[in-house]
C-alpha cells in the first residue's frame, strides 16, 4: 500500500560517509533503542539517509523536498526506486527531518525546495543511494547463498540468484550487517522501469480523501490559535495598543505585542479573530505611509532614463541604434503580485523550556528552523521542524527572512512571558495573506531596438528597474554578482536572440515593500518584455513573428526545436475561426525551454478569451511525463491569472486588494484547452515547476495584437484598453 507516513520523533539521523566522487550520501545510523523496544522491532535495513527497508518488504523513501503540488513525492522516489529495483507498490514516503544529510546539493548548507531544481539537483544523489542499497541487498543474498554477487540480480524488490530468490524484506536483516559499497555502480542505461514513464502520484489518495495534513491542519494537544494584527503600512510599528475589550471576549487567552504587531491568542480561530477585531492599536506607520503605485511607476520611469549597473554589454549599442534604418522603443510595466497560495500562511509552534517543535508548510527548512531557534533562544538542534504538505508554495513558503515562522516564534515567546504555555498555531486570514507582502516586485522596463534595412535587429537596449529580491538575504552571496541581482535580469541579460549590439542594465531601488521569488522569479517579467518586444520588432520589420524568431535562433537548436514544435502542433499560419488569432512566445528558464502558442479572441467590449494554448517543452531527460504535463497546465493557469486579472497596488501606503474578490484567480470557465508536447531529449534534466509560466503572458498579448492591433505593454490586460471605440 502506498501512503505518506509522518516521521517519528525518534527518527534521529546522523550524517556521515563520503562516497562516490565526493558526493555526500549522508549515511545515517539510528540510535539504539531500549532492549524491549529493539527486540519487538522488526528487522530494518537502513542503508543511508534516504532509504528504510522493512522486514515487511516496505520501502520507505525519505524525501528532502517539500511537496507543494509539483510532484516531488513521486518523482524523487522514482529516481531511488529505479536504481533500487524496488517494487513500486511497496513504496512509502516520509518527509525528511531537518538535517544536513538532506541539504540541497547546490545551495550550500541548507535544506530547501525551489528554483525548479529538485529533480536536476537530486538525480545523481538519489540514483546513487538507490544503487548502493541495491548492491548491499544483492551482496546479502550472495552471502546467504554462497554465490558470487555477479550471479545475482535485483528485480521488483527481490534478489534473484542462480536458482533461488529472496525478497528485500527477507534480506533486510543480513543487509544491515554489511558495509556500504566503496564504489557505486549505476544501472546500465537503456532500460528503465520507472524513469520516463507516466507514474501515478503517490500523494493523490491522501489528497482526495481529505486526510493529507497541510500546515494549517496540524494539531498538538491543548493547542491554541493566534491571529496577528499587523501594520496597515509595511514597516509600520505599534505605537500603543489597548486590548481590554479583546481580553474579555469569549475564548481569548491573551493579547501580546510582537515585532510585527499584536497577536491575539485564543481557544480557536474564530475567537481569535473576534478578539483581534476588538483591539485598539495606534500605529507608527513609518516612511511608507505615502506609498502610491502611480507615483512609484513615474519614479521608476525617470530612473530608467539613466544607465544602471550593466548586466550584459556587447558591441556599441548607441552607435548601432543611431545608424539603424529603423528605431523602435517602448516601456513595459508589470505590477507587484501576491502568491495567493490556496493555503494561507500559518505555523504551529510548541515552545517548551528546553525544546521547540514546529509544524509548517515550509520550502526552506534549515533557515526557518534556525530563525525560530535564535528567536526563542534555543540551539538549532533543540528545535524540531516538521514539514507538512504545502497548500501551494510558488516561492512564498521559501521566505529568506522566515517571516511567518519567525513571527510565530515571537508569538510563542511573548505568550510564554504572558504565562500562556501551550502550543500555538498562528493562522493568517486570506486578507492578511494578500496584504502581508513578500510580493513579486513591480518592474519597469525601457527597451529600444534598431533594425537594419532588411529588418534584422542590429541593436537592443534594455533597462530594467525593480527591487532586488536577494539583497540582504542568505542568498545574496550566491545570486548577487558585481552588484547585480541575477534574479532581476534572468531571461533578459541572457536572451539567446542573435543581435550584434546589446546592452542590458539594471536599477535596483530600495523601496521597503517586501519582495520575494514568485513562481518563475525574474522570468515572470523578462519573458513578457522580451517576447512582446521581439513581436513588436517582427511587425515593424513586416515579418511573421514565428519566422522572425526562427531567424534569430539559428545557433540555438533546442530553442528552435520547441519553437518549431509549438508552431507545427498549433497549426501556425493555418486558418482559424473568425475573430480568433494566434500569438507565439519562446523562453528558456531553469534549464528548460518552452514555446507556447495562444489562440485568443477579443470581444467588442474588450474582454479577452484564451481558447487554446499549445505548449512545447524541452526539459532534457524526463522523470515523470505526466507531472511535466501537469506542471505546464498549471504554469499556464498561473500565468494567465496574472496576465488577465491580477495586480497589487498601493494608495496612502496601503495595499488596495484583500481577497479573491479583488485579487481574482482564473476559474474553470476561463480555462483554455491546453495541449502539451514534450521533446524527446537526452540532455541534462531541466526544471518544470516554473518554466511553464513565463511564455504565456507574451503569447496571449501577441495574439491580442494580431487581433486588435493594440500592443499590451502593461499587465494585467485591461479590457477597457481593448474596447472598440
Amino acid at each position, binding site marked *: 500500500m502506498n501512503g505518506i507516513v509522518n516521521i517519528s520523533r525518534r527518527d534521529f539521523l546522523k550524517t556521515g560517509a563520503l562516497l562516490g566522487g565526493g558526493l555526500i550520501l549522508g549515511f545515517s545510523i539510528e540510535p539504539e533503542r531500549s532492549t524491549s523496544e529493539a527486540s519487538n522491532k522488526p528487522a530494518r535495513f537502513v542503508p543511508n539517509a534516504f532509504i528504510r527497508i522493512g522486514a515487511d518488504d516496505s520501502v520507505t523513501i525519505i524525501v528532502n523536498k517539500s511537496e507543494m503540488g*509539483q510532484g516531488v513525492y513521486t518523482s524523487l522516489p522514482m529516481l531511488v526506486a529505479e536504481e533500487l529495483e524496488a517494487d513500486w507498490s511497496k513504496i512509502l514516503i516520509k518527509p525528511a527531518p531537518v538535517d544536513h544529510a538532506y541539504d540541497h546539493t547546490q545551495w550550500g548548507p541548507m535544506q530547501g525546495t525551489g528554483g525548479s531544481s529538485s529533480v536536476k539537483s537530486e538525480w545523481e544523489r538519489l540514483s546513487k543511494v538507490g544503487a548502493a542499497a541495491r548492491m548491499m541487498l544483492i551482496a546479502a543474498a550472495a552471502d546467504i547463498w554462497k554465490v558470487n554477487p555477479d550471479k545475482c540480480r535485483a528485480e521488483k524488490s527481490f534478489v534473484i540468484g542462480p536458482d533461488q530468490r529472496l525478497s528485500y524484506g527477507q534480506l533486510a536483516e543480513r543487509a544491515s550487517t554489511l558495509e556500504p559499497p566503496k564504489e557505486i555502480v549505476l544501472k546500465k542505461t537503456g532500460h528503465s522501469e520507472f524513469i520516463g514513464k507516466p507514474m501515478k502520484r503517490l500523494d*493523490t489518495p491522501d489528497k482526495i480523501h481529505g486526510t493529507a495534513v497541510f500546515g494549517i491542519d496540524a494539531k498538538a494537544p491543548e493547542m491554541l490559535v493566534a491571529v496577528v494584527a499587523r501594520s496597515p503600512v509595511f514597516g509600520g510599528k505599534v505605537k500603543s495598543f489597548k486590548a481590554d475589550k479583546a481580553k474579555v471576549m469569549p475564548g481569548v487567552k491573551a493579547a501580546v505585542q510582537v515585532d510585527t504587531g499584536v497577536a491575539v491568542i485564543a481557544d480557536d480561530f*474564530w475567537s481569535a479573530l473576534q478578539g483581534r477585531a476588538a483591539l485598539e492599536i495606534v500605529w507608527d506607520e513609518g516612511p511608507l505611509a505615502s506609498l502610491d503605485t502611480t507615483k512609484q511607476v513615474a519614479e521608476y520611469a525617470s530612473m530608467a532614463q539613466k544607465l544602471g549597473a550593466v548586466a550584459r554589454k556587447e558591441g556599441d549599442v548607441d552607435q548601432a541604434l543611431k545608424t539603424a534604418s529603423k528605431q523602435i522603443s517602448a516601456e513595459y510595466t508589470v505590477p507587484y503580485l501576491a502568491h495567493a497560495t490556496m493555503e494561507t500562511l500559518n505555523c504551529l509552534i510548541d515552545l517548551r523550556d528546553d525544546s521547540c517543535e514546529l509544524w509548517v508548510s515550509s520550502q526552506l527548512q534549515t533557515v526557518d528552523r534556525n530563525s525560530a531557534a535564535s528567536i526563542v533562544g534555543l540551539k538549532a538542534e533543540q528545535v524540531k521542524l516538521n514539514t507538512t504538505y504545502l*497548500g501551494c508554495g510558488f516561492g512564498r513558503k521559501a521566505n529568506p527572512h522566515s517571516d511567518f515562522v519567525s513571527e510565530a516564534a515571537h508569538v510563542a515567546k511573548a505568550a510564554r512571558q504572558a504565562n500562556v504555555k501551550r502550543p500555538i498555531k498562528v493562522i493568517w486570514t486570506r486578507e492578511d495573506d494578500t496584504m502581508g507582502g513578500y510580493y513579486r516586485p513591480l518592474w519597469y522596463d525601457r527597451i529600444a531596438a534598431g533594425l537594419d534595412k532588411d529588418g534584422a535587429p542590429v541593436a537592443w537596449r534594455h533597462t530594467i528597474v525593480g527591487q532586488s529580491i536577494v539583497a540582504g538575504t542568505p542568498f545574496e552571496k550566491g545570486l548577487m554578482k558585481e552588484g547585480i541581482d541575477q534574479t532581476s535580469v534572468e531571461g533578459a541579460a541572457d536572451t539567446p536572440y542573435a543581435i550584434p549590439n546589446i546592452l542590458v542594465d539594471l536599477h535596483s531601488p530600495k523601496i521597503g515593500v517586501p519582495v520575494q521569488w514568485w513562481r518563475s522569479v525574474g522570468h515572470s517579467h523578462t519573458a513578457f518584455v522580451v517576447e512582446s518586444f521581439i513581436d513588436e520588432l517582427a511587425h515593424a520589420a513586416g515579418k511573421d513573428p514565428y519566422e522572425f524568431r526562427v531567424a534569430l535562433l539559428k545557433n540555438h537548436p533546442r530553442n528552435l526545436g520547441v519553437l518549431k514544435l509549438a508552431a507545427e502542433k498549433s497549426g501556425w499560419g493555418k486558418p482559424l475561426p473568425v475573430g480568433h488569432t494566434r500569438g507565439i512566445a519562446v523562453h528558456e528558464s531553469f534549464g528548460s525551454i518552452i514555446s507556447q502558442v495562444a489562440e485568443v479572441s477579443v470581444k467588442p467590449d474588450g474582454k479577452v478569451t484564451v481558447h487554446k494554448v499549445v505548449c512545447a517543452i524541452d526539459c532534457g531527460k524526463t522523470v515523470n511525463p505526466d507531472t511535466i504535463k501537469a506542471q505546464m497546465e498549471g504554469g499556464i493557469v498561473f500565468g494567465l491569472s496574472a496576465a488577465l486579472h491580477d495586480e497589487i497596488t498601493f494608495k496612502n501606503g496601503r495595499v488596495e486588494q484583500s481577497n479573491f474578490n479583488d485579487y481574482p484567480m*482564473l*476559474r474553470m470557465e476561463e480555462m483554455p484547452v491546453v495541449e502539451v508536447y514534450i521533446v524527446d531529449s537526452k540532455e541534462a534534466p531541466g526544471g518544470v515547476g516554473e518554466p511553464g509560466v513565463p511564455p504565456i503572458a507574451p503569447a496571449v498579448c501577441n495574439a491580442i495584437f494580431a487581433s486588435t492591433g493594440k500592443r499590451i505593454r502593461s499587465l494585467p490586460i485591461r479590457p477597457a484598453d481593448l474596447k472598440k471605440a
Partner: protein
Amino acid sequence: MISLDVNGKKYEVEAAPEEPLLWVIREKIGLTGTKYGCGIAQCGACTVHINGEPERSCQTSVKDAQGKKITTIEGIPESHPVKKAWIEDDVPQCGYCQPGQIMSAVALMKKNPSPSDDDIDQAMTGNICRCGTYKRIRRAIHRASIMAPDDTMAKGGKS
C-alpha cells in the same frame, strides 16, 4: 451546546451561534479535510453538503447548520466514482482545494449524471484551483460520468 450531524454522526459542540460551520468542523469536530481558503465564499475550498446541497461552510453559521445533514469530504466513500476518477486522472497537485472541488463535483453529478462542459463550467466556477488543475477536473468529471451507472451517482455519498 449546538448539535450537528456530520457524515451521519452526531456531535455536540460548544460554539458561538454565528461561528462559521467551517471552523467548527475543522477545530471542534476535528475533520480537517474541509479547507479554509478565503472566508468570503469566493474560492470553494470549504464546500460541504448541507442536506445534499453544496454550501460554503465559511459563510454558513453553525446555528443555521443545526439539525441538517452535513457531509464533508471524509463522508464521501472511497468507492465514489468522482473520487475514483480523480485518482485515475491524477487530478491533484498541491491538493489543498481538491476536497472542495470533489464536493462540488459530487453535488453536480448527483443532479446531472452526464454534465456537458458548460454544465461543468457553471457548477465548478466557484471553486478556485491555484495550481490550475481545471483541465483534469473537467476530464475526471467526464470520466466519472462514464464510470458510474446513474443510480450509483444519485446516492452521492452519504449526503
